[in-house]
């Protein structure tokens, strides 16, 4: 009886899980990750954007999903800063502006100048603002997150409306998120949309990828590792490990193996026990 209690104690599972995660981390094991089509689509699209194109990056997540989305945002932002593009940072979630600052601090911004090559506009409080900024950024964002009047920013003078954007990429953990850009930017204005998604939402976004409403999806931390390998292959100055995703991949695989093993063992045990009961009858 006592033996069975230990076996069914969930805390045993937690200990096993911590072990299979900690060992690869402590041994610093790194394995290359095969790149999926959905990730490559986003990378190739950004890589092929004409110089001086406007890209809008939207931080639509909060601190609770940082482990999944911050690595993606970091490595994609680094890619954008390596290319001769203009970048506007916005956020549909209130934590977004702070997370944007963290990303900008982590990456190498090269010789890009704030206000000329990039700007942080901050929080988009409602749908009206999201729609309105496609026609006139300055009216809906009188100041940026640093308090500068947006009418004085060269990037806003060059791109007074986001309808001129060549891409919007949303890092999304729920609503508001991708759907707003699909409805109001992609459907109405044909602005290409890409998504960086938490894993749980990704299956729901696949129909939009199949229908070509979004150009690609980055799925959880795995996509960040894939993107990092792609970026490192082309821009050797980007170090493997910038986003922190690559080092987590082996632990991700070992933890998944444990879960598969537990599902199989649990099912076998169930059927063995059921057969035992049937025989005893």
């Amino acid at each position, binding site marked *: 009886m006592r033996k069975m209690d230990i076996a069914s104690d969930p805390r045993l599972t937690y200990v096993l899980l911590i072990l299979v995660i900690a060992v690869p981390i402590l041994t610093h094991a790194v394995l290359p990750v095969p790149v999926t089509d959905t990730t490559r689509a986003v990378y190739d699209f950004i890589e092929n954007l004409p110089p001086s194109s406007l890209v809008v990056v939207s931080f639509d997540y909060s601190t609770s999903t*940082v482990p*999944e989305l911050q690595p993606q945002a970091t490595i994609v932002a680094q890619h954008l800063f390596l290319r001769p593009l203009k970048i506007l940072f916005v956020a549909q979630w209130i934590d977004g502006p702070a997370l944007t*600052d963290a990303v900008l601090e982590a990456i190498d911004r090269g010789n890009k100048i704030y206000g000329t090559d990039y700007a942080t506009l901050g929080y988009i409080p409602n749908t009206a603002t999201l729609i309105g900024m496609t026609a006139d950024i300055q009216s809906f964002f009188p100041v940026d997150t640093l308090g500068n009047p947006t009418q004085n920013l060269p990037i806003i003078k060059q791109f007074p409306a986001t309808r001129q954007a060549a891409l919007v990429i949303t890092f999304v953990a729920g609503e508001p998120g991708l759907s707003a850009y699909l409805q109001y930017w992609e459907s109405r204005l044909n602005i290409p949309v890409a998504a960086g998604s938490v894993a749980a939402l990704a*299956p729901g976004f696949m*129909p939009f990828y199949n229908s070509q409403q979004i150009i690609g999806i980055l799925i*959880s931390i795995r996509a960040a590792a894939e993107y990092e390998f792609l970026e490192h292959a082309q821009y050797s100055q980007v170090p493997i490990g910038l986003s*922190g995703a690559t080092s987590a991949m082996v*632990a991700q695989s070992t933890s*998944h193996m444990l879960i598969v093993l537990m599902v199989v063992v649990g099912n076998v045990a169930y059927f063995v026990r059921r057969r035992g009961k049937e025989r005893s009858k």
Partner: protein
Amino acid sequence: MVDLFALIGVWTAAFLTLMVLSFLYKENPFYRLTEYVFVGLSSGYTFAATLRLFVNQALSPIFAGQLEFFVPLILGLLFYAQFTKRYSILYRVPLSLAIGYGLGITIWSVLQAYFLRQIRATMLPLFTGDILTTIGNLVIVIGTILTISYFILHREQKGVYGRFTKAGKYFVLATLGAVFGTTVLGRMALIIQRIQFLLGDAAFPWRALRIGTADEGRFVPIALLAFLIVFGFYMYRKRDVKPEKSTKT
């Protein structure tokens, strides 16, 4: 070079993480304290951020002479009329405007993004030169028809029609399996990064998360050890205390 303030920040983050994870062992006051801190911090941050937004996007333009911003400001204030008996009817003005605007703008775009474009995406050739594309297209077309048929509810699902809809149910179950699988992937990512942090791993994205640097990160295991001693001592002291009986009758 270790920065003392950054080290204190790193240790605070480590203690809070461990206090949350302690719930996996047992419900305890450390966990509850973290819960309260989280609620308080979230509320405070949201309030401050919203206030800043209000100042930047509403008050500043008015003080800069853009008096037309008074109109949305007054409309917004009318929402508070619902808290008075005498003027409560006034809150219907901004509400009806919001509903009218919202519906008008949403219906068209929802139809376009979620309905027409999705239907168009299922109009696929069922025989192509590539065998894998053909199979993929067949799965999408047949899966869509069967799944939607499962949700036709005005007819009893039995006989031939029942078998048809049952196949649709299996497509729904396969989708749920995919969602569950990816949810596991996401949850594992969360715990992996926390363990990376608690082990003070140099590969942890210290800069990208603005939690000190790898130099301060090397001292995280000290916090881990300290917490385990404190938590272990607390649990040892509580080992003989029986759980309180519920006061509910």
